[in-house]
């Protein structure tokens, strides 16, 4: 029994060394996802059909299919097509040989679809009066978007965005299947090399858990600061 726990702990340094990659994946896909998600939400709410219809379809498909399927399609699909094109000789090529790039693309697109859905709802639920007050003041549509609609929408759905980030963090484990040696990938490599089944997995679970705890505790003060304008949060 003691041996078992010693084994678990012995893998922690190696796994902690792989944690930055998991964090980078989460951060990069989180940021891309938020930016594209915002654009998707705005596209869906616009009354320009060539924007709203594709955005709607994209979100529908991304939210309706498993991330793992998207990941494989992008990795194997793009990975098959791109070498035959001009991309093969471009400066981007070194990156495109790497599973990491495909992982970021798939995670970002998936995250964008979820963030977009949440933001769309939040943008729609902004009280009309506050937008009319902005218009009556002579603000431009862009100013209203930047100064009123987006700030209110983000604050409104911050708790959901936070939990989406935590789901994203845990979803990054899937990219171990396309050769990325992040936390999960490293744990599986250790499994193969050490022939231990449970110890690396438990150690890996512990690290995920710790990261989730840290992330939650970072977001909590951010959340309460950004929503202190609400009643009862004074």
């Amino acid at each position: 029994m003691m041996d078992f726990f010693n084994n678990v702990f012995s893998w922690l340094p190696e796994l902690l060394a792989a944690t930055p990659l998991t964090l980078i994946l989460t951060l990069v896909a989180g940021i891309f996802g938020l930016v594209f998600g915002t654009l998707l939400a705005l596209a869906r709410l616009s009354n320009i059909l060539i924007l709203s219809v594709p955005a709607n379809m994209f979100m529908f498909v991304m939210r309706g299919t498993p991330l793992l399927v998207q990941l494989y399609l992008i990795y194997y699909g793009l990975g098959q097509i791109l070498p035959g094109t001009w991309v093969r000789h471009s400066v981007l090529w070194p990156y495109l040989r790497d599973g990491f790039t495909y992982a970021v693309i798939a995670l970002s697109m998936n995250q964008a679809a979820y963030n977009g859905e949440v933001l769309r709802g939040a943008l729609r639920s902004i009280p009309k009066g506050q937008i009319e007050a902005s218009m009556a003041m002579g603000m431009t549509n862009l100013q209203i978007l930047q100064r009123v609609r987006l700030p209110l929408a983000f604050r409104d759905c911050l708790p959901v965005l936070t939990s989406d980030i935590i789901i994203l963090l845990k979803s990054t484990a899937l990219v171990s299947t396309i050769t990325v040696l992040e936390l999960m990938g490293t744990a599986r490599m250790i499994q193969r090399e050490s022939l231990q089944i449970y110890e690396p997995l438990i150690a890996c679970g512990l690290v995920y858990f710790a990261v989730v705890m840290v992330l939650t505790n970072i977001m909590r003060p951010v959340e309460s600061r950004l929503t202190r304008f609400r009643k009862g949060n004074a």
Partner: protein
Amino acid sequence: MTATALSVRNIRKSFGEDEVLKGISFDAHSGDVISIIGSSGSGKSTLLRCINFLERADSGEVAVAGEIIKTHKAKDGQLSPSDKHQLKQMRARLGMVFQNFNLWAHRTVLENIIEGPVQVLKHPKKKAVADAEILMDKVGISQKRNHYPSQLSGGQQQRVAIARALAMQPTVMLFDEPTSALDPELVNEVVQVIRQLATEKRTMIMVTHEMALAREISTHLIFLHNGRIEEQGPPQLIMENPKSDRLRQFIGKF
């Protein structure tokens, strides 16, 4: 001869089959306080909203300080502003105060007041804050400068909304029932601010149900009924000698 601050010509507006405004015209000269009264649904809010194009009229013309807001007939038959830039400038000169305050919930009192001057008028932030301080004093909200709207009473919120509109140094102030959403005991603090503005000879168009206030501060009273100006004139005269049965009935209710 005082300059015409606001000129409204022949505004018509229908919602579907229902013609809510059937050709409304009036002028506000500099320093005028025009109160608009009328029963619920008579089109008072719609009229105010057509003036700053929150609502698009079907036809008519609005001019601020002699400058006509350029429009054209859009495909849907409504009047559409032709020059976005001009519309924004015109809106900046029409300070609007809403029945439900409509303060930006994520901004403090001070931030609400400096937003327009900084973003629209491009004033330096320092100047905007200095100006806001004077206005917060004026409406008696200085102690609450760092509070959020949700932390204020209705009366306080409406006073901030008035300060926010004043911060744009508008040519004309438009009030849409500024006290209707307030608890009775909070009406007075807002009325006092409005009364103060009237004594400063600010040009104001005010939709109101506060007959005593309308009578006290207005230079001109407009009674709206069924989308038309049924009667208008100096408030004392009109209220003491209503010519139409409608107005007599309406006043009788108070």
